[in-house]
């Protein structure tokens, strides 16, 4: 239960961090440490080098740029939780943040660390898929953008080259008054979700859904966009029957099985939680974002 021996590096610039990453064999990047540190303590990972990003300048910010909200990779989950920009422009993110771990872990955990760790049950990973986020990866040759749908290449494996660092992520806000909801089932408050559902909706004045994003987290090896549900809703005025029928398609998700739940239970949760998230999101269409989403 103690970390194995390694060499420690704490670069001050992104360029230095990338240089170290390119030069050193068997190196791991340390962001907020809420996943890597337990893995070091339990010796699941045995790196020769740890490159700590906590003293790198310029990676912690939340700003509006070109109509998108850009978040620096080392921005702590706590900063997202208390950001008015996040609450008003990305309210789904604020609702999800409050379900990530605990105050003690959100004070340290970062958005970039969570996205790179890429646990399919992680709230921020599910949000990346739901918002069609854009990941900015920086390597020796400069920065490139990766669409979130191309970011997870396998279970807990991001589409980053070995010498690249995730430096920022951009989220496109939905229009003012959109519906949103993040609903998850976990055994205890703050645990990883066994399954979660993230919903974004807009409707025309007649109540017809004209845009929908429905994402299931924790059920499969990567977050899954429930495109069948989205297609069944767009163009329709939702009724309880329509929601119920549309969400049944989530039972077809190729779900994982582990100590917490069998695949069939996750498929059941996907159908139930997506319906509950849709119901909640519908009640919020046209409403101002509440000051507190607890």
């Amino acid at each position: 239960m103690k970390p194995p021996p390694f060499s420690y590096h704490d670069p001050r610039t992104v360029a230095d961090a990338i240089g170290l990453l390119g030069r050193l064999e068997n190196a791991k990047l340390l962001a907020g440490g809420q996943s890597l540190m337990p893995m070091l303590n339990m010796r699941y990972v045995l790196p020769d080098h740890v490159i700590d990003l906590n003293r790198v300048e310029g990676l912690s910010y939340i700003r509006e740029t070109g109509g998108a909200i850009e978040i620096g990779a080392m921005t702590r989950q706590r900063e997202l939780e208390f950001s008015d920009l996040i609450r008003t422009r990305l309210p789904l993110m604020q609702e999800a943040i409050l379900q990530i771990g605990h105050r003690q872990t959100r004070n340290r955990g970062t958005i970039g660390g969570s996205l790179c760790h890429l646990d399919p049950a992680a709230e921020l990973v599910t949000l990346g898929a739901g918002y069609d986020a854009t990941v900015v990866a920086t390597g020796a040759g400069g920065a490139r953008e990766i669409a979130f749908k191309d970011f997870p290449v396998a279970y807990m494996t991001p589409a980053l080259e070995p010498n690249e660092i995730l430096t920022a992520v951009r989220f496109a806000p939905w229009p003012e008054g959109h519906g949103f909801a993040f609903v998850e089932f976990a055994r205890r408050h703050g645990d990883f979700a066994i399954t979660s559902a993230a919903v974004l909706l807009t409707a025309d004045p007649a109540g017809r859904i004209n845009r929908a994003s429905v994402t299931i987290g924790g059920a499969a090896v990567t977050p899954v966009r429930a495109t069948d549900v989205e297609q069944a809703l767009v163009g329709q005025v939702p009724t309880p029957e329509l929601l119920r029928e549309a969400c049944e398609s989530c039972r077809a998700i190729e779900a994982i099985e582990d100590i917490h739940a069998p695949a069939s239970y996750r498929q059941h949760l996907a159908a139930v939680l997506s319906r509950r998230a849709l119901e909640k999101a519908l009640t919020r269409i046209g409403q101002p974002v509440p000051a507190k989403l607890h």
Partner: protein
Amino acid sequence: MSEQKRTVALTVNGKRYEKEVEVRVTLADFIRHYLGLTGTHLGCEHGVCGACTILLDGRSARSCLMLAVQADGHEILTVEGIAPNEHELHPLQEAFRDNHGLQCGFCTPGMLTTLLEFLRDNPDPTEQEVRIALSGNLCRCTGYQGIVNAALDAAKRLQAGGAQWPAGMRPRAGA
């Protein structure tokens, strides 16, 4: 820049320390074994039980999930720094004593540090808010009811008495 030992300079409970430490040593082990402050407890060593919670620059963090070298230049508060002096308890600690907020005491350092930050940021919490705030701290003795009662009682005492905060823990709004 590449080495397996470093010198760490930091402030713990208002006192300045400078020690050479192996870089793989966690902040929790550093506090316990290098500084001799054994009030910070280690239950699980993988970020689940909350017993090792300390305040880093006034914010709660699990000291088993940080390296000691990462605390270089920072200010730490541990359970030993909560009471105003050797003879008096902090109102939060008094509330724990009066409400059966502890039995074996193993989880208590983490409960107190967690609640110190929580009550600074939420001076008048509901019971539900207290339960959520404590959801990252495991207690195997009390069934939590005494701890929740102590937290609610402490909130009243702190408001009535004009909140008393250890050095480096001034009340601050929001983020």
